[in-house]
Structures are given as structure tokens and as C-alpha cells.
């Protein structure tokens, strides 16, 4: 499912809202989430999971083209931990195939 399919599916279930409103809503939610993470704030959605930042230390890397060694700065990367409900229902699906 892509973002536009997600917008379609939600619009089908909210017939009183225009697809434009749903589209703006989805974009606003995703921007809100990205903004929280870029401020170092966690996101917690019960049952679904949580997003947080993990730190990656500075390391010696290489330019893949030239083979030259370069020092890569430390950085933060987004991390998602699925919640218990999501973990269990996704795992149940494997036995139903």
C-alpha cells in the first residue's frame, strides 16, 4: 500500500470527508511525526508501536568510488519498535497462510 492508496482507503471509510481533506490530514500526521523525531521526541502509539532515535557513532568510512578513507560524523537514525498488539497480530498471520 502506498500513501495514495492509504488516502483512498481512509476516504472510503470517511465518506463525509473529501479526499482532499484526507490527503491533507495524512500529510499533516506524517509531518507532525517527522517533526517530533527531528526534535528528538519519541512517538508512542499504543498497540501500534513507538518511534525513537538511535545514535550511530562516528566511524571511518570509504568513498565507494575512489576507495579514499573518510571520517563519517556520528548521527541519529529513526527506529521503530512494534507494539505488542501489532507484533502478535502480524505473527498470527503467518500461521493462517
Amino acid at each position, binding site marked *: *500500500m*502506498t*500513501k495514495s492508496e*492509504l488516502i483512498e*482507503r*481512509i476516504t472510503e*471509510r*470517511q465518506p*463525509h*470527508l473529501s479526499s482532499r*481533506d*484526507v490527503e*491533507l*490530514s*495524512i500529510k*499533516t*500526521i*506524517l509531518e*507532525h*511525526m*517527522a517533526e*517530533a*523525531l*527531528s*526534535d*528528538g*521526541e*519519541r*512517538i*508512542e*502509539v*499504543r*498497540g*501500534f*508501536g*513507538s*518511534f525513537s*532515535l538511535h*545514535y550511530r557513532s562516528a566511524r571511518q568510512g570509504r568513498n565507494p568510488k575512489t576507495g579514499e578513507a573518510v571520517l563519517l560524523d*556520528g*548521527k*541519529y*537514525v*529513526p*527506529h*521503530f519498535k*512494534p507494539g505488542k498488539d*501489532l*507484533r502478535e*497480530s*502480524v*505473527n*498470527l*498471520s*503467518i500461521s493462517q*497462510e
Partner: protein
Amino acid sequence: MALTKSEMAERLYEELGLNKREAKEIVELFFQEITDCLVHNEQVKLSGFGNFELRDKRERPGRNPKTGEEIPISARRVVTFRPGQKLKVKVENYEGDERKG
């Protein structure tokens, strides 16, 4: 402090002028539709933000950390999140404590 569904709904109410019930329903549906896809073994691609993917893991040997007893970890399906390039760039320069350490 963490971002939760109620704050997401609050923003839809404030910025888009949806009523509070609609705002709450959209936020609920957003996570519900993603969950439904994943439960049906369908990956979810949210361009700019990231992709939720599924991985099937084979059974592997494990151990009860308390007793040291060997017990197999059963085959399972897990959700993984691969952040998109835009999100990665947005968070990488966060000035967190670990950077100073």
C-alpha cells in the same frame, strides 16, 4: 514527553479545521489501515517517511536468560521499519546527549 495520537488529532483540528471527532477518527484510521495491511502481509510505503516491511524469520535456537535452559525460538513474522531518505536527513543532525559523550 512523547507525541501521541491525541496530539496528532489536535493538530488536524487546529490546522485543517476538521471537527474533533473527525480528527480523532482519521488518526485512528491511519494506524488501523497500516496495521490491516501488515496483518495481510502487505508492505506499506509512505514516501518521504519510510516503509513498513515484513520479514519471515526461521526457527532458531534460543535460551531462557534466567535458567540458561535451551529452548527453540519459533519461526515468526516481524515488522521492520526502513526510514525514507527525507526522514533520515531530517533527524541525523539532532543535537542529542550522545553526540557530546
